[in-house]
């Protein structure tokens, strides 16, 4: 029974790869092939939904062993990443819930996306996302969870940039991905620390060994994972990305930012419950961040004028409450809250288009009257979070990059020396000719050998000295006898060479080279 868990992520992956390859090689394209794509995607998701429900049923009947291991994915020294899955408990329940939501959204999108230009692309990424989120939820170790985590983020990137011709969409997608990448860095740091201190990357071992590490260590691990969770669930200070992510099509917004992906962060915290319970500081941080985000979401949500934005801030706020519950230790409540919220928010997002359609002629009233002016202002500006990040993070990095680029081009490059460009070399040849016939057209720059950079200047100086030596002593001193001397020198050189070819002199030569080396 447990082996079925493998098929839950595998089915959407297969569908995704068939759609993707078919599209790449032109086998699936245009409106005619829409049914092919939609059948593939929807049946994969129905089947994986069915499997998840079957597995859930057998878990409720206590037929599951709780875990299933397929094999080793990566081995290096003592690092052993297995392909193992959790087949019981909260993970499986969440997977079943998510698979139901995904199946519904998949069915919804078939009609909603009809005749859209990126129809096949949309289903490719939705299937890939289904794979990723199931991997994330069901995986028994941190690294495979991270794979799902990151692939889900990637799908979100591509669906935000769904209408990539619009610069705003492309810009937001990049920004969202890079923001999430900071969270990913936290995740991988947490995984690394767990491996360093607990010698394992399996969730089961990590949570079981939480008793054996010091509070400082578990706090560090917990905080790293908390950063990842905050970034994924759009908690402060990462909240602004969620509003930017609304560029994608409605079904993808529903599944990514309403029902499924944003909850991954809370799931991670719940999964790591023993570690967090062993780290009071991390619990406090989670609670405070959750509380602040909830307040932030509430206040900013008051002044939103379009339905998608207000839903987004409501989602942020609710997620904040979940974090607050986790931080205060109400784990059971957080789990229920998560599931209930996923269902409600998923429905609300899917209903948005028809809601807008129905409300076309009705005027809506903003709820701004209830709050003081300064708060209203702050709420309208979303507490200046985006400009603040720009000012505190992006602008300095950009400036630093600019300065370094200048430094690289003008200082390092010129210190290392560049050869004289070809044109300049030719012109100096011409200058030499001019010099020979006595036409001093340009006396300023008629150096034949010019060097740049440290090494170049040194060589140039040395060459000048040698040249001076050569012209003053060697050439003038010898004069007409050069040829005779040259012949004699040739004889000497010949006999010298014969000597040198004997081994002992070769050795001497090696020694001299060595001496020079020191």
């Amino acid at each position, binding site marked *: 029974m447990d082996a079925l868990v493998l098929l839950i992520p595998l089915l959407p992956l297969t569908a995704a790869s068939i759609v993707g390859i078919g599209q790449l090689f032109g086998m699936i394209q245009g409106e005619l092939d829409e049914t092919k794509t939609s059948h593939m995607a929807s049946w994969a998701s129905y089947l994986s939904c069915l499997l998840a429900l079957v597995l859930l049923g057998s878990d409720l009947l206590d037929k599951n062993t709780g875990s299933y291991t397929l094999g080793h994915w990566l081995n290096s020294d003592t*690092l052993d990443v297995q392909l193992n899955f959790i087949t019981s408990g909260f993970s499986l329940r969440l997977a079943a819930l998510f698979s139901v939501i995904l199946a519904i959204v998949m069915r919804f999108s078939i009609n909603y996306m009809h005749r859209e230009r990126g129809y096949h692309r949309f289903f490719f990424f939705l299937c890939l996302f289904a794979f990723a989120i199931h991997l994330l939820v069901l995986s028994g170790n941190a690294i495979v969870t991270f794979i799902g985590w990151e692939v889900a983020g990637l799908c979100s990137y591509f669906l935000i940039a769904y209408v990539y011709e619009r610069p705003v969409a492309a810009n937001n997608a990049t920004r969202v991905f890079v923001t999430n990448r900071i969270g990913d860095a936290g995740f991988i740091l947490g995984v690394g*620390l767990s491996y360093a*201190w607990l010698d394992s990357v399996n969730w089961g071992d990590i949570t079981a060994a939480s008793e054996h590490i010091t509070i400082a260590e578990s706090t560090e691990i917990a905080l790293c994972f908390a950063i990842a969770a905050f970034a994924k669930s759009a908690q402060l200070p990462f909240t602004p990305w969620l509003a930017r992510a609304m560029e994608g099509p409605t079904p993808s917004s529903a599944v990514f930012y309403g029902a499924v992906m944003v909850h991954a962060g809370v799931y991670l915290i719940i999964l790591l419950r023993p570690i967090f319970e062993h780290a009071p500081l991390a619990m406090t941080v989670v609670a405070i961040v959750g509380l602040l985000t909830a307040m932030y979401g509430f206040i900013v949500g008051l002044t939103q004028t379009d339905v998608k934005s207000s839903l987004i801030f409501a989602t942020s706020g609710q997620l904040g409450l979940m974090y607050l519950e986790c931080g205060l230790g109400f784990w059971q409540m957080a789990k229920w809250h998560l599931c209930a919220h996923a269902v409600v928010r998923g429905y609300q997002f899917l209903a948005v288009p028809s809601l807008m359609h129905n409300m076309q002629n009705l005027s809506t009233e903003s709820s701004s009257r209830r709050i003081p002016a300064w708060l209203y202002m702050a709420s309208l500006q979303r507490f200046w979070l985006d400009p603040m990040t720009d000012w505190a993070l992006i602008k300095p990095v950009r400036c630093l990059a600019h300065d370094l680029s200048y430094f690289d081009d003008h200082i390092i490059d010129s210190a290392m020396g560049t050869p004289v460009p070809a044109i300049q070399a030719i012109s100096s040849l011409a200058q030499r000719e001019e010099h020979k016939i006595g036409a001093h057209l340009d006396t300023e720059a008629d150096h034949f050998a010019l060097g740049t950079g440290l090494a170049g200047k040194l060589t140039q100086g040395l060459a000048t000295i040698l040249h001076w030596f050569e012209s003053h002593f060697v050439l003038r001193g010898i004069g007409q006898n050069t040829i005779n001397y040259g012949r004699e020198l040739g004889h000497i050189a010949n006999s010298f060479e014969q000597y040198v070819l004997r081994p002992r002199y070769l050795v001497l030569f090696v020694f001299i080279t060595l001496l020079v080396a020191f």
Partner: protein
Amino acid sequence: MSNASFPLLSLIIFVPLLGAIIVALTRNMPLAKNIALLFATLELIATSVLVGCFDSESHGFQWVENYDWIPSLNIQYLIGIDGISVLFLPMSALLTLMAILASWRSVQHLTQVHFALLLALEGVTIGVFLALDMVLFFLFWELTLPPIFFLISLWGIGSERRSAAIKYTLFMMFGGVPLLFGIIILSVNHATATGGSIPFDLAFSLPVLLATPITEHLQAWVFILLVLGFAVKAPLVPFHTWLPTVAMEGPTQLTALLTGLKLGAFGIIRFAMPLAPSAAAQFSWILGIIGAITLVYSALIALQQTNLRRLLAYASISHVGLVIVGITNLNIQGLQGAIFQLLNFTMASGSLMLVAGFIQHRLGSTETIHLGGMAKVMPRLTCFYFLFTLASIGLPGTSGFAAELLLIISSLLAHPGISIAVLIGAVLSAAYMLSFTRRAFFGPISQTSVKQMLDLRARELTLLCLSALLILGFGFFPNSVLKINQTAAESWLSNIIKQPALTQTQRSTKY
């Protein structure tokens, strides 16, 4: 050392060189191209057979061939492979094959010479990977220079290609000198350490030199000289300025080979660290810091680039920094991650550079101002571009992820401070690659030339598919690579960490 029953390795070195001669002598241009393709394919098959026959369980070198070359100095023709070098051979063969296919139409004059030089470069590059005699290694190392020089100066796409070729040559010459000094010191040390007379007891073969004891003082010198020599080729900051220049001026198929095959990093793994083990253990943290600086420094500069080729050059330098960090961590994950990363970049950076070449060939530029909205007209090229980009920033599913994961974990175990630099590098790499993507591939089409661009042709599609398959294959099954170099990595490490003191500090961070 006994010789292998069949001289497969010599065959692998000399097949491309023979091919180069035949191609250069062929008068008929289409025939010459096909011969070049044939020899490149043969080479790929031969190297793949070699990987198939490779025994990953056994320690030491395999398929060794040993003949006297200059007996009076004990210089031998000694070649062999181990788990560290074996996978580089099919990779370089594949990349050369891709480079030949990519330049199928774009090279119009002196076509025979161009393909002959590419094959010759392949032969000597493989020689570098195989050579176990220091003098033979040095010969191959320096022999890479002439083909590259002519490829840059004759078929370069920039207006200052000659200058770029000279710049490259000067840098490489500069790197060669300390390398040669290091080799001479090592061999003389062998003669003195064994108490023999100098010309007859000099030794240049790597296995013999590895067994020779060296004093601490001398090791430091050897390490510094060798690392200096390899750092220029790798390249590490501040010796990196040749790469962006060459990327801008040189032909893209050559730049793909230069960014894809990181001989410098291989040299550090193969020679610099094992030949001066205690110095390597002592100074590895300094080299690690240089690697971390290279990583972050060139990632930041890459953020600033507006030209795809220049951006890729800086990205490649940043990757070298990452690999150096992995090597200097002195643990198995670090070394395996570094080798994995090198293989990944052979595919990802090489292919990205070829994609840049396709764009260059179609538009005459890879400057962002001339691009924009390419995703709409060239969906296939965009697909492949994305796949290689994702591999280069280490997204799961691609080979980059497994490599980056190993490198991050290894630096966390060895130097937690440096691991922060690695993580910053990971975030920055996403930022610079994707912000360029946004400007070049997304957004509205602003240039009419972009509107008329053709998508990938069948030939281009095939060659990109080859590397895409490998990237995904390695990404899904990383153990296929790690198994091959596991044993070699263990013996490499045990050779360097002989001192118990160091192993203790290594493990002290562990619970």
